[in-house]
């Protein structure tokens, strides 16, 4: 998977780091002073991740926890994300990471204790505070190698008002199965109809595998979140999503469904140009996009609202009147 693994001196001996090295025996290992001296220092084209992907392991300095943007996550709660990794092993055609960093090379930060210590500053026992992992990477894709969630479990057991969201397009739940389900850790899956997964979510787990993972976690009592985001228009989108919802709710215990988010495909303008460059033939680009008032490239408002209304209405038929659906990044 990785050609070269660059490891900061400072973290070389940590068990997290050693575990990572153990998993990639064929990779060349190089020791460096600081990740920032190499990672992203030169512009490396995104698609080079297909055959030339490197991994950096280091200690994240500076601010470890950041306030999430508005309209992120459920209302009436504070939302933060934390940075434990940059970039992703998957390759989704709409992914904003393709234009966000100057390189597709992956960084794994292993100073998890510092991250948790910083979380303490934001936890308020009177307020619901969410911490989201996976703003810049998939939370579970490499978790059997990075092995960090066990330590977060203990932390969140002691802080029941704080919530942790682990967001994934993988089916890599093995590292979670040894852990007890706790109500304030929510495992969320990004889902799309099967055709869309095949077309746009390259290298991710198949829809079938993700549904199986949802079923397994749900049966064990884990809290599950669902992101139907990004929805990409196709002529029969409603029929495709109806089928998907049927499959999902067959696999999910209702009491373990924490929330559902719905969002229509959108890009910052810079990322849209990257998508055009990286996937010029993509079906994703077939539809007409506009630049909306917030500077994002989206479908025209009537179109995206129609899609969201149609899907929300359909979803509510599966939820016995409970409105656990929120519309992501839409006023």
């Amino acid at each position, binding site marked *: 998977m990785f050609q070269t693994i660059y490891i900061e001196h400072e973290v070389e001996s940590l068990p997290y780091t050693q575990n990572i090295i153990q998993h990639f025996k064929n990779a060349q290992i190089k020791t460096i002073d600081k990740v920032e001296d190499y990672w992203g220092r030169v512009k490396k084209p995104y698609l080079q991740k297909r055959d030339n992907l490197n991994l950096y392991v280091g200690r994240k300095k500076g601010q470890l926890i950041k306030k999430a943007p508005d309209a992120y996550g459920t209302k009436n709660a504070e939302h933060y994300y934390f940075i434990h990794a940059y970039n992703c092993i998957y390759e989704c055609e709409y992914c904003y990471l393709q234009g966000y960093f100057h390189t597709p090379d992956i960084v794994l930060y292993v100073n998890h204790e510092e991250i948790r210590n910083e979380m303490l500053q934001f936890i308020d026992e009177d307020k619901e505070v969410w911490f989201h992992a996976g703003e810049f990477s998939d939370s579970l894709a490499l978790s059997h190698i990075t092995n960090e969630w066990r330590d977060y479990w203990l932390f969140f057991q002691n802080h029941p008002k704080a919530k942790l969201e682990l967001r994934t397009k993988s089916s890599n739940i093995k590292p979670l199965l040894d852990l007890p389900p706790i109500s304030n850790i929510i495992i969320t899956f990004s889902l799309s109809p099967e055709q869309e997964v095949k077309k746009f979510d390259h290298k991710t787990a198949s829809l079938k595998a993700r549904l199986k993972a949802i079923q397994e976690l749900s049966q064990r009592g884990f809290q599950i979140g669902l992101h139907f985001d990004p929805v990409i228009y196709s002529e029969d989108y409603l029929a495709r999503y109806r089928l998907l919802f049927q499959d999902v709710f067959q696999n999910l215990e209702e009491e373990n469904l924490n929330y559902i988010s719905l969002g229509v495909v959108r890009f910052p303008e810079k990322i849209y140009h990257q998508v055009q460059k990286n996937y010029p033939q993509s079906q994703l680009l077939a539809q007409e996009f506009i630049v909306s008032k917030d500077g994002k490239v989206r479908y025209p408002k*009537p179109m995206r*609202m129609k899609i969201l209304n149609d899907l929300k209405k359909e979803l509510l038929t599966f939820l016995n009147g409970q409105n656990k659906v929120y519309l992501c990044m839409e006023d």
Partner: protein
Amino acid sequence: MKLLTFAHRAEAQAFHDKFDLKSCGENLFLNQDFMLLVTGEGLFEAMSECMKVLTLHPEISEVYNLGIVGNLGSQKLDEVASIRSVYAHDSSSPLFKSFTTSDPSASIDLLSFSQRVKDSQTKEKLALFAPLVDREAWAIGFVANRFKRPFYVFKYISDDADENTQCHFIKDSAFLYSQKLLSFFLNFHSGPQNEEEEERQLPEGLYFTRAQKLLYFKYQNLLETLGKEIPSEEIKKIMLLDITPKQKTGQLLNLMKELINPMTSIMQEELGKFLKPFTQIGAQVKTDNELESSELLIQYKIRNQSDIDRLKRGLELFDIKQFERFFEGEF
């Protein structure tokens, strides 16, 4: 006209012989199809010489950089490689910009260094960025990028870049390397001529401008991805229309667009219905271009009382509530 750039005259020998080039300036040679430039060694020399030639010769349509490179990693020696991305390092730090060549099949990266690499320590430092090193390619890429010309780099991997480099040996073998580069270059261009191929794929009886041609192929690809075809009876209808071949092409492109994105057509149709009370009295109605807001601009010439009555009637018939709901996706 293709511009071939080399750092040294010796590297270009085989090209001189093959293409029977005539001198047309200092270190510049040409025939009907090629211009060959010997830039001299180093980033600045290559950049200034290439910049001069591209400024004076706008007829140059593609830029090539060819020559010898040193190995920083474990690339196989004595082979010619088509380079994917070119980075640069000015001996103190890497330069941020990188340039990706137009060869989609290329898979090896190259670093242009400001000095000759003569020791293992430098080799090791540079190997963190790319497996091959030269002294000019980045500069040529910089200029080609500025002039928006496709850019290719073909390099013969002559030796390992370290203290064992034997410059005199490389110089002695230059003609052999040049022949290998020439044979690679000729092979690279032995593929089918794209333009002729394109012409054959266009429907008969229509006239396509260059832009329409590109759009046609884009839509054609999208329709293929969507598994759709243009109904033959629709094409027949267009061909029977009493309009110019260029206008028929416009009609065909509209039809293709509708097939790709039927939602846009539905929205346009809905909008047309809403605005009918105004359009049928001859008013000009302007909606928000991006369909992000329901604002309307109505322009109507009032010449007499009956114009006022007609406008009043139009305003009465216009259902603003319904129109606003259209923007909330209710249609």
